[in-house]
């Protein structure tokens, strides 16, 4: 990434704002070859305007401009019906999808001059409804990652694609004997057809699927109780009483974007706002959003579930006596009996409106008990569907390793994933791989797996590929590329075709053909691609009955197997909970600097992972945050820094997977500790009985928030439903005295924002969206240690109550655009001023950088460019930038602008439409991304607007109102719904 400077002239061009194709620049070609690895010589061509236009909307061809088109048009279809002309400077949106763990998220890709710059949610897609999560927002940077490898190599020598195809065809041989494929989970209907062809043509080839998660336990549970393997599909929208036994449906579990929106809807319900009880060992966004958070070690959750079931089946007809008996002799659950009774009562009363969820990684016992609980309640908030995955419900890696050791694998092709990093520590995958004759690695980057393989072929990113997939509910979602492969990446379809020695076929034709073969006409296909998904294609929701006799049998077996043992852990040993955090996931996003620098939703940790331990445990061991401990699982020992986490169970320590990469050319290199070493195939998520030894060394952890008490200040207000609103809200009716004059009569529009703390889960989607939209630089770990992170929007987390079991509230904090802004009167050069439409403006080219404005800002939302944070940017990374937003120079202050570029674009649209300014709706980046729609923005003078109505709410208040700044951004106090009988 640290290449030399580009020749003069690059990036400084005409300044017209139009995309400047790199190939147009003289003298660039030679430098480019060093810049892009050999083989990635597609890049310059891909970016010429000519090339873009040749891929433009079909309407160009329809308009008879076929003379301009140099090669056969691949028609990608823009999302919005626009006039045929494409206006440079105006963004084009295309519906597409990103696939993770086999499931698609429906997105819109915003493109400028032929390249994608931002991702939004697809409003038409049921899984996103227009919102997007952290990982979707950050995907843009994965596309433009300089750590991606663009050269096809065999034994470290560059080769051509033709030679690679030949090698693949040879590897497959006549019938695929000895050929083993290792793929990532997929739900792609066209891949299903393609694999069917592969099975026909290469009958002896074997396909394995590698996943770090999988659905095995869930499928086993439903198979047992419902006689068919099904996955649970809860719908939180109308839940009145919910119990989450572990898991994080609102932020990191699958389908979290849809679940967060549904949950927020249930909170806002006027008649029956939901009440959630969350039982977990380690804090999560869901846990801290709950009305009651109960700290329970993961291994006791089945016992708690069984105890609840015992109470609930009493009133359920048709439950056999065996089940009653099996549940009768359980040891007491490790939570107060009174609380258990209250939860059961609440669930029973809610009946069909109750819901019990478990985490996706819950063991089979817990999954089964949850199924039984929901059935006992008669819950209508959950349904079941068969898996839509083609494979990957269970991890196929152990089987592949076994075959490798047995010498059965002659040719191995690994596509995607990174099995040499993500395999459990007890599976010696590296050794096993060496047993294969020939190893092909098709991937985005030269990672651990690539280092162990002879062949490397670059993989095309989702944003560069034609394809399809299904979302979690089965909705068929299409993928269309918005840019030619930057690194000469190949899709899985091209690899499979190469194995079958088929002629190359362009991806778009192939995809269309597959759908034609399923009976989809051309017009229908175009409409589907344009929309991004096939509405109504969700697989049917089933509600099969539970076989209670089987349930009883299962409970008996689990009881005999010791699942319900309530004995505390042996002294000196703890449970280790391994989890995929919301940033790096299983490690695949480790090279994404946005995600590394994103403060973790719970810990606010960046550029690291740490062992979360309870404050009580920290006292017992005598450790402080940052001190290293040795975690000994019996098989391996790992040295990890400790992070004292309020709300963590004293019996459990937690560590995020995916860090500690050793083979990475990007941001992930040697960041954090590799937790996969502690993972085993038998205990992938919960490792029992680890020992901790305190070490003397210390590691500075780059935390972005040091202090999390509110110090009696009215910052993030939260009040129970039956309590009066905090006096701080009423106090705000009286503005403090000020020397500064009030503003005169205000003209429309006046922009304002309201953030609903009751809907915010703290998931950080808004933070990532803001970073993507506003070209916010990444500063690196050393600078974060020096408190210099650049995020304009941050999510503050405050704790209240005891350190062991605190209440927590998340508060997105950005520039409040104060009407009497403290920053404005202290700037010596008029670099920050107030606009007529209510914005606090920041004029970068007038700023001399005295930083008085930051000192005077009570919210500390202003950021300063301490260095030139963009000096290591390359033409590749600059492609990710939003051309509508200035890139700030060294020495200049910056802050949230209420997405002024979008406001001004809206003004222009209004003017073009002949309307008053501010008529066209404006959506800020953070508002657009937020899955739970916690952020509202608009014209506060328009009484019918959502923001005006929100401001009029009795819950609305300004943070630190007594400072007299009169912020435009208001917050709605969180109203919690605790059980009135709870002591």
């Amino acid at each position, binding site marked *: 990434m640290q290449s030399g400077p580009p020749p003069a002239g690059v990036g400084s061009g005409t300044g017209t704002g139009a995309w400047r194709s790199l190939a147009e620049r003289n003298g660039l070609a030679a430098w480019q070859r060093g810049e892009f690895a050999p083989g990635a010589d597609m890049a310059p061509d891909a970016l010429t305007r000519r090339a873009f236009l040749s891929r433009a909307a079909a309407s160009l061809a329809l308009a008879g401009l076929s003379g301009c088109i140099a090669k056969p048009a691949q028609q990608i279809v823009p999302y919005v019906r626009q006039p045929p002309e494409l206006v440079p400077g105006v963004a084009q949106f295309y519906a597409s999808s990103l696939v993770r763990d086999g499931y698609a998220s429906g997105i819109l890709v915003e493109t400028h001059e032929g390249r994608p710059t931002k991702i939004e949610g697809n409003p038409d897609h049921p899984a996103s409804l227009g919102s997007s999560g952290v990982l979707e927002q950050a995907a843009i940077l994965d596309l433009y990652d300089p750590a991606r490898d663009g050269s096809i190599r065999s034994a470290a020598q560059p080769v051509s694609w033709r030679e690679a195809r030949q090698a693949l065809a040879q590897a497959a041989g006549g019938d695929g004997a000895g050929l083993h494929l290792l793929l990532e989970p997929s739900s792609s209907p066209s891949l299903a057809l393609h694999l069917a062809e592969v099975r026909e043509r290469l009958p002896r080839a074997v396909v394995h699927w590698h996943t770090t998660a999988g659905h095995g336990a869930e499928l086993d549970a439903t198979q047992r109780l419902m006689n068919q393997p099904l996955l649970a599909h809860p719908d939180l929208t109308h839940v009145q009483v919910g119990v989450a036994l572990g898991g994080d449906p609102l932020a990191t579990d699958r389908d979290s974007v849809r679940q967060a929106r549904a949950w927020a809807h249930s909170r806002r319900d006027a008649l029956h706002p939901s009440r959630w009880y969350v039982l977990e060992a380690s804090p999560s966004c869901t846990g801290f959003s709950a009305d009651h958070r109960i700290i329970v070690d993961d291994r006791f959750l089945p016992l708690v579930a069984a105890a609840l079931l015992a109470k609930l089946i009493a009133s359920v007809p048709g439950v056999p006596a065996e089940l009653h008996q099996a549940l009768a002799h359980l040891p007491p659950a490790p939570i107060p009996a009174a609380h258990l009774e209250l939860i059961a009562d609440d669930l029973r009363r809610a009946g069909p409106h109750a819901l019990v969820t478990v985490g996706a990684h819950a063991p089979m016992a817990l999954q089964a008990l949850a199924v039984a609980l929901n059935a006992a309640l008669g819950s209508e908030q959950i349904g079941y569907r068969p898996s839509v995955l083609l494979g990957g419900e269970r991890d196929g890696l152990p089987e592949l390793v076994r075959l490798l050791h047995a010498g059965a694998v002659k040719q191995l092709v690994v596509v995607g994933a990174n099995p040499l990093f993500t395999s459990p520590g007890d599976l010696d995958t590296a050794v096993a791989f060496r047993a294969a004759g020939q190893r092909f690695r098709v991937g985005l980057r030269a990672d651990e797996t690539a280092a162990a393989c002879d062949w490397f072929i670059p993989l095309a990113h989702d944003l560069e590929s034609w394809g399809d997939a299904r979302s979690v509910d089965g909705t068929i979602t299409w993928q269309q590329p918005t840019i030619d492969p930057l690194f000469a990446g190949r899709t899985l379809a091209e690899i499979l075709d190469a194995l079958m020695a088929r002629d190359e076929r362009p991806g778009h034709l192939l995809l269309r053909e597959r759908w034609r073969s399923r009976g989809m006409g051309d017009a229908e296909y175009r409409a589907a691609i344009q929309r991004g998904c096939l509405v109504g294609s969700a697989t049917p929701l089933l509600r099969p009955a539970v076989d209670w006799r089987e349930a009883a049998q299962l409970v008996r077996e689990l009881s005999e197997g010791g699942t319900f043992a309530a004995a505390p852990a042996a002294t000196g040993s703890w449970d280790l909970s391994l989890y995929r955090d919301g940033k790096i996931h299983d490690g695949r996003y480790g090279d994404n600097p946005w995600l590394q620098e994103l403060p973790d939703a719970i810990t606010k940790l960046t550029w690291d992972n740490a062992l979360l331990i309870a404050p009580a445990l920290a006292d017992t061991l005598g450790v402080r945050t940052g001190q290293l401990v040795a975690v000994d699982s019996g098989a391996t020992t790992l040295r990890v820094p400790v992070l004292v986490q309020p709300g963590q169970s004293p019996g459990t320590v937690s560590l995020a997977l995916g860090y500690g990469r050793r083979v990475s050319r990007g941001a992930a290199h040697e960041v954090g500790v590799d937790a996969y070493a502690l993972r085993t195939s038998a205990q992938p998520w919960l490792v029992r009985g680890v020992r901790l030894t305190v070490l003397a060394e210390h590691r500075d952890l780059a935390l972005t*928030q*040091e*202090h*999390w*008490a*509110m*110090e*009696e*200040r009215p*910052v993030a207000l939260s009040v129970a439903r039956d309590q009066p609103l905090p006096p701080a809200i009423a106090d705000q009716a009286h503005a403090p005295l000020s020397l500064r004059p009030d503003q005169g009569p205000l003209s429309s529009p006046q922009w304002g924002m309201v953030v609903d703390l009751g809907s915010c889960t703290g998931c950080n989607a808004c933070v990532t969206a803001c970073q993507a939209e506003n070209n916010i630089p990444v500063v690196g770990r050393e*600078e974060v240690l*020096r*408190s*210099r992170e650049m995020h304009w929007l*941050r999510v*503050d*987390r*405050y704790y209240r109550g005891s350190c062991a079991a605190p209440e927590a509230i998340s*508060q997105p*904090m950005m520039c409040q655009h104060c009407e009497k802004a*403290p920053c404005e*009167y*202290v*700037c*010596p*050069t*008029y670099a920050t001023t107030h606009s007529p439409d209510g914005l606090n403006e920041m004029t970068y080219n*007038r*700023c*001399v*950088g*005295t*930083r*008085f404005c*930051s*000192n*005077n800002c*009570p*919210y*500390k939302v*202003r*950021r*300063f*460019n*301490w*260095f*030139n944070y963009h000096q290591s940017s390359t033409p590749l990374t600059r492609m990710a930038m939003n051309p509508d937003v200035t890139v700030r*120079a*060294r*020495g*200049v*202050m910056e802050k949230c602008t209420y997405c002024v570029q979008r406001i001004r674009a809206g003004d222009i649209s209004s003017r073009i439409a002949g309307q008053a300014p501010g008529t066209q709706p404006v959506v800020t980046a953070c508002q657009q991304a937020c899955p739970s729609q916690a952020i509202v923005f608009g014209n506060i003078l328009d009484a019918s607007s959502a923001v005006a109505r929100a401001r009029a709410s009795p819950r609305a208040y300004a*943070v*630190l109102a*007594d*400072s*007299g700044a009169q912020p435009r951004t208001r917050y709605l106090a969180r109203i919690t719904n605790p059980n009135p009988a709870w002591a």
Partner: protein
Amino acid sequence: MNDTELMIGRPDDRTLEDQLLAPLWHGHWLFRWPLWIAGLGSLVLVIALTYTFVTGIGTWGNDIPVGWAFAITNFVWWIGIGHAGTFISAILYITQQRWRASINRLAEAMTLFAVVNAGLFPIAHMGRAWFFYWLTPYPATMGLWPQFRSSLTWDVAAISTYGTVSLLFWYLGLLPDLATARDAAPSVGRARIYGLFALGWRGSARHWRHHRAAYTILAGLATALVVSVHSIVSLDFAIAKVPGWHSTIFPPFFVAGALLSGFAMVLILVVPLRRIMHLENVITIAHLEKIAAILLATGSIVGGCYLLEWASDWHDPDQAERYFGLVARPFGPLGWLYWAIICGNAILPQVFWLRRARRSPLVLMAVAVVVQCTMWGERFMIVVGSLQRDRLPSGWGGYEPTVVDVVILGGTLCLFAFLFLLFLRWVPAIPIGELKRLRRDLQGLDAEAAAPVGDAHAA
């Protein structure tokens, strides 16, 4: 206090001239290796500032929330030091205090070099220092004036005025002595140089009359500056809403603190200098005693201000101010500094109630050095301590200086020493003319003491 102590012996004009011009004609060991070392340190300062200019403010320890740290602390500290010189030159002149005669030029030079050092920082600490001139009201093609409600703009006026007036005042006072040097110069070359700067001073009655008028006017201006400059500097903080800054006591508090640290610096300069350059006869123990008395007075005022701050924080309805003043400052991350400052600034000068302490060069030097350090610490605590604990708790942060910060601070001390040594080398540091006048005055006093005017035993 008996003014007759202000000069030991009553040397005649010639002797005075010879003694006070000796460093100019005959050099001194101070101008050899100490000057080189100070020069080297100044060079290091230039390098450090250039490095910052070229690479970014990120080379310092500043962060968000601590946007100001060492640079502004140094700025306020240096400007404060300068105030003693102006006090001695102007206020002691207006109040006709004889003890200003021998030390006023040293002190005024101290002021000038302190202002030079201080003036580096408002420019150096800017993110885009090459646009520093945007803070000045020049006819810009952008059509923009500086933003006049900001105290940083007032700083520009205050510091530039201060520098200009101090320079003029110093130079005006220097004129007669430059002429003396011209007349006593051992070589034609040197006579010409001093003559050039003496601007043709002949010492006629007319010259003296004009000189006195001009000097008095400048003294009047400078008197106002003693109070106004540091008040403006204190408004850099007081107009902000930061807890711990937003206090009306800041202007008098800062001025008192400035005088405290300024006089401490005078002591640090004068106590060793009078020894090294054999000036004990003109800078006497009586002088030191008077300076000590001022230290005591200003230290007590500063201590009184600390008490007043406590009192106002105690019943402040603003919780953030209460918290900062009563909890964060005395017991927070810089709590140790707070108590050290109270001891050094308010309590330690109380030792000067003792006459023996006032007249002991060792005690004077020790107290002055400690006070100087704790005064720097107080500026640091005000700047960084408040920023660390602002109104929104999620914005609370830490601060750690970098090597560059420390090097720059040390570098300014070296630059100060370098300029001061150059001053001692080339300019008559002790006012010759004024001492001649003082000697005549004192001879008059001696005569009065021997034979009092009038009959003291009227019947």
